[in-house]
């Protein structure tokens, strides 16, 4: 931690002139404020204030606020969430509460019975959206959430959280398109796999049948 020999002298800015009149620095400062005062009336870059309710600052597509759930199709039935609880576990302020829906036999239906987010606790970090393996939770851009009811009004449930894929596409076209493409590819892969499986099963069945037939024929022949 030795201070090395100074190598360069400061070139910019000069801290103070060599010989100055008292008050010259003050006058310089007053000139700056005067310029700002005058220019604030006609130069856009001087005034950053946005008059909020009348006009709004543009929101970048990356902007994130509180999470929402995505469903495919037209209604809640297509909710992508499988209640896997990964987001619940990773959520830093632990504001997600999920209960898995089960049928009467106790078998998982792979969908949430309860999905609550307490947005008064949520800190908009976006980790839930990041960790979700089912592309079902994303960050919303909606920020006008003021409510008169500070308990119920800020506790969002499954119904209030759910949004259609169109909404997502509108909010973040790039991301949504990417997700849609990926899901489509996966879907096709899955379909293809299923088709292949069916075909294979059919083939096997046919072969089996053929074999049986052959054996039968052999047997009858024998």
């Amino acid at each position, binding site marked *: 931690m030795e201070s090395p020999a100074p190598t360069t002298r400061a070139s910019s800015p000069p*801290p103070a002139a060599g010989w100055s009149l008292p008050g010259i620095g003050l006058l310089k400062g007053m000139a700056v404020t005067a310029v700002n005062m005058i220019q*604030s009336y006609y130069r856009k870059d001087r005034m950053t204030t946005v008059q909020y309710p009348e006009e709004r600052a543009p929101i970048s597509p990356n902007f994130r606020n509180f999470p929402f759930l995505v469903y495919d199709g037209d209604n809640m039935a297509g909710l992508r969430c499988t209640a896997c609880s990964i987001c619940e576990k990773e959520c830093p302020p632990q504001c997600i509460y999920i209960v898995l829906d089960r049928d009467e036999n106790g078998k998982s239906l792979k969908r949430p019975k309860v999905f609550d987010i307490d947005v008064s606790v949520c800190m908009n970090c976006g980790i839930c959206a990041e960790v979700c393996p089912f592309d079902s939770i994303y960050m919303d851009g909606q920020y006008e959430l003021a409510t008169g009811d500070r308990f119920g009004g800020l506790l969002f449930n499954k119904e209030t959280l759910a949004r259609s894929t169109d909404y997502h596409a509108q909010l973040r076209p790039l991301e949504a398109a990417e997700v849609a493409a990926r899901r489509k590819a996966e879907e096709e892969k899955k379909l293809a796999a299923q088709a292949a499986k069916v075909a294979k099963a059919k083939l096997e069945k046919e072969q089996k049948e053929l074999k049986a037939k052959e054996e039968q024929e052999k047997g009858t022949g024998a």
Partner: protein
Amino acid sequence: MRVPALIALVLGSFPSLGLAATDKPPLLTGESLPRLPQRLVEMALEALKAPDWLVSLASFATAAGTVVAVFLSAFALLSLIERKTLARAQNRLGPNRAGIFGILQPVADGIKMLTKEDIVPTKAEWFLHLVAPVMIVIPSILALGVIPYGREWLPVPLELGLVFFFATGTMTEVAVFIAGWASGSKFPMLGAMRAISQMISYELPLIISALSVVMLSGTLSLADIVAAQSGYHLGFIPAWNILTPWGFVAGIIFLIAANAESNRCPFDLPEGESEIVAGHMTEYSGFKYALFFMGEYLGLFAISGLGITLFLGGWQAPLPGLGFVPSWFWFFGKLAAIIFFFLWVRTTFPRVRVDQLMRFAWLCLIPIALLTLPVAALWHFTANPDGSNGVLSWLLCSAILAVPFIIITVIFNRRLAPSLRTYHYAE
């Protein structure tokens, strides 16, 4: 003895507090517009055959009421304009929600102040705590009464106007002390100590710089001081005191000292909010707090008005041939300019420290202010018979007044030698 007669007797026994002006200007000219209410009241009472003492009392009350009304509305307006101007200098918009351009903001502020809880701390002395804000407002209003606002508009034509002004000003110190002490708290106490020492220190340059004007005008009456600055040199340069060497220096000193007297940035130590919260006003709330603000702003108007009267020619027009404009217009124009300057300073300057404040007053302002006195005398004795001053007189007076400035420059550069810093870089 009936009570009204007693009042009349009491009032009558303050002979040269002369109450209101007694002349009768024409009713409806631009010049005498501000005196219209007073004249109307007088005429109404005379028509009703009211006794003389009642007429003069009512006339006085109306004249005083006019001034108070004008300056209270100016206070309301200034509280908005100040916020707007500061906001613009800081590239903000300022209040613009209450009414168009936020014009109703003062009303909103007033309602808010009035509806707030009036808190009196347990340790406070409630009576003195109550008295202080009232005592802050009274001297400002009294001082506003003696300033000549226009050719026809001088609420109280006092022979000793200037002395009266400074005498009322001293009451503010007591009020500030009472406010700080009676709050029974530490920040107000610190603020009051700062305020008193600052006010006492800056009262001296204020008075001394005003003295040179008194010397050359030969009167303590503010109306006569304005009258002494009438006329134009060379036909277009107004004969204001600020346009003489001694008047220029004294005027600047007056401006600085006035700024400090009204506790405004960069001399706002008594209420320096980043250090001692709000100084002597810390424990006040609601309307009492509003009264402090009112007193402060009225005091600002009063002291700026005095500066205008002493140095800027009062209500005199800046150029000849502008006589058709009512003279009070010029007064308020100058007032607006001075107050704008104060606002501008406020946006730019950081606050000074207590010891620097004191050193500035005692080592810088007071000596220079004292120097303006002999220079003013020299100016008077080197004047031509017609009252104007020759080039030699100008040069001599300017040269003498330049000496302290040169000394200050030298000391400034010596003292601030550590400020000529170079910074090094390590690679």
